[in-house]
């Protein structure tokens, strides 16, 4: 087991390195750099001005050198201007020579400087990640139990009316991407002119103008049911159908197993069969699915945060990518790649622990 985890960690590290290099390469292509220079400087820069701007800031070095500098294994660039100003990757203008560090990169814990937010990347990503963490936690709390309940209820009597209705429901949710369900929810529940809210307000059932708030900006500081439920529901719904279908398949398979028949013939109550005999075995497969679903939630997070204007990690990704903020984008992709790989690892290890029939030697 130890060797298995070590090997997986090695592959993970290699994957993360490859992926960050790809992101690095794509963001450092010359047209992207030109756009960066023009948005940072001004839009009417001449070609010479662009190349001197980029050259001064070390953007025109060879790709592996730049990547090494970002990683912190190569000494950072230092530019000495003709007028005697000296600045570099690791120190601003006017730092005395003795205090200039040679290397600064991810290995030294320096994630760089965001050109969009004019701030250090590390703290920026951390605050946004905390906000998204809150969102994700709520999503998991809503999505996992309801998906498991739907799946178990559908799978315990295959072919019944309950099964058919719940299966249709889960198919419908997997067919509804976040940007569709979000739009429908806002129009139906959070619009003061259409949908349910005006009706309910007229009857005096709700205090405010709308049942839910269509924007989650206020939920960043203070999340409550009114302003946070719609984004959470929108993300949960799309992921839920898939987990529910997997749970249903797994439950239906378990219910046809020999030991369930034995329990039935012994005269065990149906509820006891489901809860005590079937459930534990039926939940092995959904566990891995849930873990593998987390990276997919990341997509949903980006869409929903854009739609509901919740300034979290997904919003940060959109900002970084649309402005070609190289170092911020790299940090964002490192975080998301690590999330993907760690969940894969956890799902593999968890599967081995939960399923005694599988042993890794």
């Amino acid at each position, binding site marked *: 087991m130890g060797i298995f985890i070590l090997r997986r960690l090695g592959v993970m590290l290699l994957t993360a390195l490859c992926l960050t290099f790809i*992101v690095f390469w794509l963001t450092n292509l*010359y047209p992207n750099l030109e756009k960066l220079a023009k948005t940072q400087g001004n839009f009417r820069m001449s070609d010479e001005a662009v190349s001197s701007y980029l050259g001064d800031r070390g953007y025109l070095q060879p790709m592996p050198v730049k990547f090494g500098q970002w990683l912190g294994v190569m000494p950072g660039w230092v530019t000495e201007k003709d007028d005697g100003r000296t600045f570099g990757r690791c120190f601003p203008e006017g730092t005395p020579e003795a205090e200039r560090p040679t290397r600064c990169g991810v290995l030294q814990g320096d994630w760089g400087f965001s050109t969009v937010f004019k701030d250090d990347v590390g703290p920026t990503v951390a605050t946004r990640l905390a906000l998204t963490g809150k969102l994700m936690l709520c999503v998991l709390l809503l999505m996992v139990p309801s998906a498991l309940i739907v799946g178990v209820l559908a799978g315990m009597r295959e072919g019944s009316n309950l099964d058919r209705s719940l299966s249709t429901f889960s198919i419908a949710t*997997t067919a509804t991407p976040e*940007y569709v369900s979000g*739009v*429908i929810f806002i*129009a139906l529940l959070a619009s003061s002119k259409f949908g349910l809210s005006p009706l309910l307000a007229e009857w005096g059932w709700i205090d405010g103008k709308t049942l839910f708030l269509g924007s989650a900006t206020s939920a960043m500081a203070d999340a409550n049911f009114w302003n946070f439920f719609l984004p959470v529901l929108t993300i949960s719904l799309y992921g839920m159908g898939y987990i529910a279908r997997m749970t249903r398949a797994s439950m239906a398979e378990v219910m046809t197993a020999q030991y369930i028949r034995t329990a039935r013939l012994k005269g065990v109550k149906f509820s006891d069969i489901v809860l005590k005999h079937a459930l534990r075995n039926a939940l092995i497969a959904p566990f891995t699915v849930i873990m593998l679903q987390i990276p997919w939630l990341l997509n949903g997070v980006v869409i929903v945060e854009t739609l509901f204007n919740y300034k979290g990690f997904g919003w940060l990704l959109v900002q970084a990518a649309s402005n070609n903020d190289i170092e911020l984008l790299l940090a964002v*992709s490192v975080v998301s790649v690590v999330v*993907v790989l760690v969940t894969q690892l956890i799902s593999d290890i968890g599967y081995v622990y939960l399923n005694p029939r599988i042993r890794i030697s």
Partner: protein
Amino acid sequence: MDPLTWTGSLSGLNIIFLAVLGLLALTIVVSILTSLVPSSGTRAVGSDGTLASDTGAAGFISMVLGYLFYALIALVLVYLIGGIILGTGAGIFGGMARQFLPVWIALILTFVLSITYKRRLGLYGKLFDSTVGMIGFGIVMFWVFTGVFGGVFDMLITHDSLSQVSGMKNKLPGTPLRGAEEGEYQWFLLGGDNLARDVFSRLIKGSWVVVQIAPMATLFAFMVGITLGLPAGYYGGRLDTVLSFLANLILAFPVILLFYLLVTPEIVLTGIPNYMAMFLFIFPLIFVAILLNSRFYTQPSFRTPLLIVVLGVLGWLYLSMISNDGSIVQTDTYRIPGLPSFLDGFDIDAGILVVFVSVVFVNSPTVFRIVRGLALDIKTRDYVAAAQTRGEGPWYIMLWEILPNARGPLIVDFCLRIGYTTILLGTLGFFGLGLESESPDWGSTINAGRRLLALYPHAAIAPALALLSLVLGLNLLADGLREESLRD
């Protein structure tokens, strides 16, 4: 000219429709609740010793459910037929039903022909044995016909999808056109968007974008996935390790990040999409060449002309596809010459190409993994061993023994994946990537409509519901196919 209501002169039926709908929902809830309580009908022993049992309360409820369902369908049909006859006299729905008349005719023809000959049509014919599959197929074909009739022949649309009509900005569905001229359609059936364009016509034009790109992109992804996945699964070893690592690498990328990196005007300038197109579009050629060669290499006199003709046609298509204005890659500093313009069959817009390429790129690793898994499973079967003993080549075994036996899961996944590709295309449109902002595709329209969602939801709701129904149809179709392919 008065604004249209939703159902016009058929509005007397609305109360019945709502009542049936409400009863149906109620019955479904009741039937779910009763299914939680175990019950059985009473049994009676007949005088001749036979046992007779009635179906009990559950049976009664499911019978009611069935009748209510048929009543609902009958009512919908009344609305449709009434709409076709009365046109806008039956309100917005009526107007739409009449506009869609060619689609209804095509759908009815398809269904009548398919059901008549279903026993001769293989898996496709078996689809018509399953209700779910038929519903899914119906929805999918509805959008396919809409896309073809509306997008290619300009038949169903009421107005030009790009022209802005003064005074129609953000107007509600059914608003009459101000100062409409003779012969012009008098209403905006689904209202106007924030640039005063007709939502209904844009919806129809948008379906063509999806119907065009999604199946083709999925097909290319399958070609790539099959061509790489079969040898990875069959040979295993180092080839498998390398290819699987690459596939996992792409899969570990968050899709949206990848889109944001690949689908930008700056990346188009560097020519990377063209290189990717060159790489990804060659796979169908390789696939077909190996497929035919492995089968007919024992008869060179037949194989050689066949390959020349087939590869000639495919090669011309390939070169037309990747070359634009006589060059394959055109950047500021260099260009790679391609097919000269007079031989170039068709040009693909750079925006569409980059969308297409990135969707194929994102989809193919998943297909690769599925095909690899299937190949790993099937290569242990006896018929593969028999073929190996006969001395067949590895590619013959992969393409003519393993692949046909993996077709069931692959066809099902193909349907599901078209749905997923549709979602991806919508995502791209939602973030305003790739296609130009006035493009009528559903994702871009949702993106344009979401800013005023709380005030004028119709501009975003219409394409959202369209996308939802298409993907739902594809999912139901896949479900029906899975059911039917498991049956034999």
